């Protein structure tokens, strides 16, 4: 595994170095950043983004993009929340399959529009971003699901821990990371996603069922958004039709492109994506310590995306140069 892998691993080392430098720098200025407590804060900030990033990573690798994951998160969370509110006697764990299935169906609808009508995913999901958000308002009658309606067992998942004082919500997020890694690296579908993104024209010639693979990718993104939705309810204890999941897609895209997932498809690793998410988490955790208002967060995300795009391009250029060198 020489040339490209080492290039990719260099990308991952690069992010790791950036994280270390950032933590060192902030810690020198504000020593309390070096405590276990702040690690806990960082880890509590990232689980939802981590799950969303796993979804978006596979979508980008397949040479698509999904702008609707924030709205899918909101709709799934609202669906589960409404059922909790209206059927308080329901066993609380059932919220998980409900939210995940809801999300998967929404994702499947995205995939169907993309494959059936051969539409660019970015426009389709821009439409469903709005559509799903609107539907969230409609099913909830524009009203919030309050703390009292969310089962306390669910809320406890963000605090309670099976071991080492690590909350369930973090364990679940890393479970999703592991699952995505297995899918991406060790299953036929995973490799076909990479193949399809790497050369969409060749994929059908090589016997890859592009429609099926695309549908699965979008459904997986929806399912993970649904999972993130129910965890949102756990973490914050409420579901709001306008706030829940709004702007989520942007944080996730920022994390994924920082993590080295190529917008041209075919390239991207789970480890890089995780590091990208952690870097964003560190930045988010450091801002209040440094006295920088939280309102700068989006500008930082946006700037970081632009820089990551430029890095992505220079990596690609070096790749192309290598090909030319080999051919010449």
């Amino acid at each position, binding site marked *: 595994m020489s040339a490209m892998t080492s290039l990719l691993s260099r990308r991952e080392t690069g992010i790791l170095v950036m994280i270390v430098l950032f933590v060192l720098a902030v810690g020198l200025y504000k020593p309390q950043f070096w405590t276990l407590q702040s690690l806990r804060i960082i880890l509590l900030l990232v689980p939802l983004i981590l799950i969303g990033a796993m979804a978006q990573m596979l979508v980008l690798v397949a040479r698509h*993009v999904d*702008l609707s994951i924030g709205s899918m998160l909101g709709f799934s969370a609202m669906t589960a929340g409404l059922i909790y509110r209206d059927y308080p006697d329901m066993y609380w764990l059932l919220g998980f399959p409900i939210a995940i299935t809801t999300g998967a169906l929404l994702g499947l609808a995205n995939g169907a*529009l993309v494959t059936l*009508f*051969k*539409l*660019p995913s*970015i*426009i*389709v999901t*821009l*439409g*469903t*971003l*709005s*559509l*799903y*958000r*609107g*539907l*969230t*308002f*409609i099913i909830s009658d*524009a009203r919030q699901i309050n703390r009292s309606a969310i089962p306390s067992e669910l809320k406890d998942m963000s605090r309670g821990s099976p071991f080492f004082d690590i909350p369930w919500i973090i364990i679940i997020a890393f479970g999703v990371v592991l699952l995505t890694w297995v899918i991406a690296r060790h299953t036929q579908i995973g490799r076909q996603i990479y193949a399809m993104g790497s050369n969409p024209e060749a994929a059908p010639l090589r016997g890859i069922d592009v429609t099926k693979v695309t549908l699965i990718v979008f459904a997986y993104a929806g399912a993970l958004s649904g999972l993130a939705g129910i965890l949102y309810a756990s973490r914050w204890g409420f579901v709001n*039709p306008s706030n829940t999941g709004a702007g989520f897609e*942007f944080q996730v*895209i*920022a994390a994924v492109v920082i993590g080295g997932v190529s*917008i041209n498809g075919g390239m991207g690793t789970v480890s890089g994506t995780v590091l990208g998410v952690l870097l964003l988490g560190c930045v988010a955790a450091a801002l209040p310590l440094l006295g920088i*208002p939280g*309102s*700068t*967060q*989006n*500008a*930082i*995300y*946006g*700037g970081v*995306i*632009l820089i990551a*795009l*430029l890095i992505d*391009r220079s990596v690609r250029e070096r790749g192309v140069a290598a090909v030319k060198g080999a051919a010449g």
Partner: protein
Amino acid sequence: MTDVTSDMTSTPKSRELAPARPTWHILLVRPETMTLLLLVAGLVGASILSPFFLDVSYILRSFTLTAEMSIAALVLTLVIISGEIDLSAAANMALSACIFAWGQDAGVPLLLAILIGLGAGLAMGALNAFMSIRMQLPSIIVTIGTLIFFRGLAQVIAGDRSIRVPESFIGINQIMLFGVPLPVVIFVVLAVALGFLLASTSVGRQIYQIGTNQNAALHAGINAKRIKWGLFLLLGFVSAAAGIMAASRLGSVRYDLVLGGELQMVLMAMLGGTYIFGGRGTILGTFLAAWLLVVVSTGMTVANLLPAIQLTVLGILLIVAIIATNFIYARTQR
């Protein structure tokens, strides 16, 4: 690249010698015709729903609510025809307006503050152009990045507060020219100007050619990069102007000005029959679509529908519009 490609480009001899299509046929398969029919249907339906719609001034007043976005959408149409896209125009409006309002709030003379706002818009257009054209990154991803970035900067500048603009500057929508609100007049004038540019000048012709086949345009000596730079800069500038107009209409500026407006702008272009992959579309289409959207959203308001339902309808409309235009173009392709 042998037989098949050449076979694909050579085509039915029957078509070559067939008589030219009749004019009515050509007109009927134009997507703008669909937009016009929808607009008429919408007007009729809305008038039945509420007599307000027979009052022209009511519609004109409603139009001022989205006039700024519609103005930017006209330029966006050119960008899309040239084969690029810009999702950051709404964020640009917000940031330019924030910079303008913040400037004059800090004591900069009004006129200078306007110029600074417009300059900021140009700079944003330049950033998009640099990333998409100079660095050759796909504009659709680049402008998602700049969308977040611009909106984030607006948030940095304005925070959560709303910045007031001076009384004297408020009320562009109250100014009437021949009984028509000024923003509407600006929209119409810009539509006529851009429509002329696109349909009747060599630059307009080249915009279509670049969007249809950039490589062929390059081979024909057309400077695609320069034209695209020009379009991104124009959109940046016009978005800033639109943002400042919105500030005047609203009387104050917040970072979330026209939040999510990119959806409506793309929707106006798509509903007007602009082809998402470039090379096809008209200003007339976007012009009609802007009115159609006003009729639809005002109709929904009059019918006492939740704003949320409007969000749903917009999403559905976008998807239906793009499916329909793709379908029409696929039919006329061969």
